[in-house]
């Protein structure tokens, strides 16, 4: 146990890094999920096909492979794209934090697409018709009528997606992000106590996922509170 002392602050900073990546990935995943869901639900054939391809590819490819692809590949692709606009640019780099956040965002976004799609379909169509009758624009309907009702239906699965994001962040250590798994590896290199170090990593993750689970449960209660009072 004494071996851990001296590494506490490294684990602390690693945990902060995990939370930062989690936040970034979550935002990206929600954006991609909403984009994908609206594409799948739209009447535009091209959008539907694109969204289908998106969900199939990112739900069927291992997270590690997507991550490695993004870490090494995007720099190349983005550089070529950037050079079209400004030939002066020598290179464009995507640091591991963003390579990881985008990769996880895309992967869990694909799962969220399905969740949001199901939840949107669960909102009674009469609501949309009523909004239309009242003169709300499509945008207003989306934000004020459909989204709030969709969230309640999406919450249980959304909670699971949040847990997935949290656990996927561990993979970014493989491309050099200094989060807690990487700290665990560095600590092992110096202390030669892998069981202790990786158990610590596991317990930190467990603590965070517990918090997320409690948060989701609380959010579910809040979102459904308007239904509970009817007894």
């Amino acid at each position, binding site marked *: 146990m004494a071996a851990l002392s001296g590494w506490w602050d490294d684990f602390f900073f690693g945990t902060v890094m995990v939370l930062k990546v989690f936040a970034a990935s979550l935002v990206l995943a929600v954006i991609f999920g909403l984009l994908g869901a609206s594409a799948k639900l739209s009447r535009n054939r091209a959008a539907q096909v694109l969204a289908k391809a998106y969900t*199939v*590819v990112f*739900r*069927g*490819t*291992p*997270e*590690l*492979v*997507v991550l*490695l*692809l993004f870490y*090494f*590949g995007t720099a*190349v*692709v983005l550089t*070529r794209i950037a050079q079209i606009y400004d030939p002066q640019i020598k290179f464009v780099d995507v640091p591991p934090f963003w390579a990881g956040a985008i990769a996880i965002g895309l992967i869990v976004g694909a799962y969220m697409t399905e969740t949001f799609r199901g939840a949107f379909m669960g909102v009674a169509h009469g609501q949309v018709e009523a909004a239309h009758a009242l003169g709300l624009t499509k945008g207003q309907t989306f934000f004020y009528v459909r989204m709030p009702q969709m969230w309640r239906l999406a919450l249980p699965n959304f909670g699971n997606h949040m*847990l997935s994001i*949290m*656990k*996927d*962040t*561990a*993979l970014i*250590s*493989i491309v050099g992000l200094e989060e807690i*798994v990487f700290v*665990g590896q560095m600590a*092992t290199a110096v202390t*030669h*106590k*892998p*069981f*202790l*170090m*990786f*158990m610590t*990593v*596991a317990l930190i*993750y*467990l603590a965070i*996922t*517990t918090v997320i*689970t409690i948060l989701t449960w609380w959010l579910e209660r809040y979102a459904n509170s308007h239904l509970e009072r009817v007894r």
Partner: protein
Amino acid sequence: MNFDFNLILSSLPQIAAGLGITLKLMAYSTAIGLVLAVLILLMRISGRWYLTWPAMGYIYFLRGTPILVQIFIIYHGLPQLDFVRESVLWPVLREPFGCCVVALSLNSSAYISEILRGGVLGVDKGVNEAARALGLSAPQRFIYIVTPIAVRLALPAYSNEFISMMKATALASTVTLLDITGVARTIVSNTFAPFEIFIAAALIYLAMAWVFQVGFGKLEDYLGKYTKRGASA
């Protein structure tokens, strides 16, 4: 940097060499994971606190921590403990393949037991009561009535978990196993063409996922035969 289509095609057969290990990993982990899952499920729904609580703790830990960390604990961490190295399990844990099977089985068993529990909870109470009225004992009810219905209900979620486990096998490459991802990473380190090689690896995984999806679809159709309208004569 040029994008080399030919490299994708030419590396596919090489990367497919890792397919054998990936499939073996999946086969062992699925089988053992299923057995463990049923065990944990029975413990979880037994109603006796000394069985339910350990099962819930097991599920809580394995679902709350990343698979990568679980693999590292089993592969790197366990040998640190002397008693592990002298135990009966050492021949299994000594090999990276064994460690990955243990990690993947444990992890998927936690998820599958919850999925099966969802299936069991979804069985109509009336069916269970009717069976009781007909005089079937609790074990008989569970095996002949509840299980077939629960399996059908759980199948969609199970197929998702199966695909997740397929994706998790890629992590075996972090502990020296030469599965699809392991072979791909080795080729990348020799050819310095990460983009093309990882796309080729992704294509192989996608092909596998597609095959499994079709298989599960057929299974769902077969099990759901009697629920389709107009199916019965």
